[in-house]
């Protein structure tokens, strides 16, 4: 067998598996970004709030999850989550060990980590809103919710786009660590294919190339969105 047979779509080729693996990597990263957006928004809210407890909790979250190894968080969520699921199963009368599905564990773990980065992005974006705009909205009688919906959300989304792009690229690479839970994403499939064919070098190169394709493609897509969003700011870098 030549190398092209190993990664091709023939009888013994791993091509189809690798394509699925790439989609799985995209899927788990997307899910993690959504989880991270929820955590990130809550943490940013805490950090920006007047409440002392909110600020301390927000700071603690970002310090811990940006400072502790990703692998440790993934182990914690996977094994801790599995124990919780087993305990709940025990109450419901099921016997033995129940595992947390690796997709959910992975999305949750990477989501918790990227949430700490997204929180900083959201916070920066909120602080970039001109205070005058909020005053103006208040002066024409917008309520708190209306201000949030009409003034804050659209601008935070716009300003945080470049930062979110960086977080996406980071999470894409962090998702490789989810392979320790057995999720069949690029890293895991490269490992199992390499192990069963003894073609370690080939499959790790192929896995690496797949990641490079994903990061390059996302770079293009993010660039496209950034240009679109910048349309309304034509002629200047930011705002007047």
């Amino acid at each position: 067998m030549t190398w092209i047979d190993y990664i091709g779509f023939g009888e013994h080729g791993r091509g189809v598996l690798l394509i699925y693996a790439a989609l799985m990597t995209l899927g788990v990263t997307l899910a993690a970004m959504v989880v991270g957006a929820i955590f990130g928004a809550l943490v940013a809210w805490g950090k920006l709030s007047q409440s002392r407890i909110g600020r301390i909790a927000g700071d603690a979250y970002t310090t811990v999850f940006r400072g502790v190894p990703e692998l440790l968080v993934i182990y914690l969520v996977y094994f801790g989550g599995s124990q919780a699921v087993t305990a709940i199963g025990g109450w419901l009368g099921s016997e033995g060990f129940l595992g947390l599905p690796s997709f959910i564990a992975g999305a949750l773990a990477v989501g918790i980590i990227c949430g700490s980065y997204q929180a900083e992005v959201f916070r920066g974006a909120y602080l970039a809103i001109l205070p005058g705009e909020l005053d103006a909205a208040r002066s024409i009688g917008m309520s708190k919710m209306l201000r949030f919906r009409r003034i804050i959300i659209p601008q935070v989304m716009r300003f945080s786009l470049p930062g979110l792009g960086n977080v996406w690229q980071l999470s894409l690479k962090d998702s490789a660590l989810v392979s320790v839970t057995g999720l069949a994403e690029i890293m895991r499939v490269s490992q199992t294919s390499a192990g069963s064919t003894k073609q370690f070098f080939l499959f790790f190169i192929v896995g690496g190339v797949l990641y490079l394709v994903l990061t390059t493609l996302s770079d293009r897509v993010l660039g496209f969105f950034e240009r679109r969003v910048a349309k309304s700011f034509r002629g200047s870098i930011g705002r007047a």
Partner: protein
Amino acid sequence: MDIAFLTDTFLKLIAALPMTLILFVSSVAIGAVIATGLTAMRVSGNPVLAAISRAYVFVFRGSPLLIQMFLIYYGLGQFPAVRQSFAWPLLRDALFCAIMALAMCTAAYQAEVIRGGLQAVPAREIEAARACGMSGFLLLRRIIAPIALRQALPAYSTEIVLMVKTTSLASLVSVWEITGTAQKINAQTYRTMEIFLVAALIYLVINFVIIRLLGYVEYLLSPHLRGRPAPAST
């Protein structure tokens, strides 16, 4: 709360701390050397060297470190030529492979940081130095390097602190540092929360110490920003 178990776990994890520090210090140091070379190639003015440097940065920043580490540790050993070469005693050593993978990866990030620092050196400083008759290495040593280092330091600190937690990946090629040891204890006792919280705490303390040290270096390198008399009026 089981104090005896926590103490026991803490002692076992602290015993793995030297391994984490070995991985961290050697990979950051070797990475800095590679990064200097990459930056030199990038700004050399030679299009071929610059392209090689750019490609290196693209590949190592665009793919996960784990796959790079596996490629070096498992991938290279596949070839009989490598197994019979003089480098095999090194390449079959998990610690050596882990350090090399960490160093090669951080080198790509560090090269970008150093390049950013170089670009921040004002052209007029270089022109002034040239006007005084400095050139070549003297110019680099006295003017460019100190300014670039000072400019790059905040981003450099971020990268160094990130490397502390990145060393945990070495556990996946069987180097028993803190995270690997924690996982080993977890597999034996299944007391996930307690073990990983102790491990997390150790990492946070290491980070805290390193951030403080780097803050002190930054303080030492910026005497020109200190001790300015307060403005008379605001």
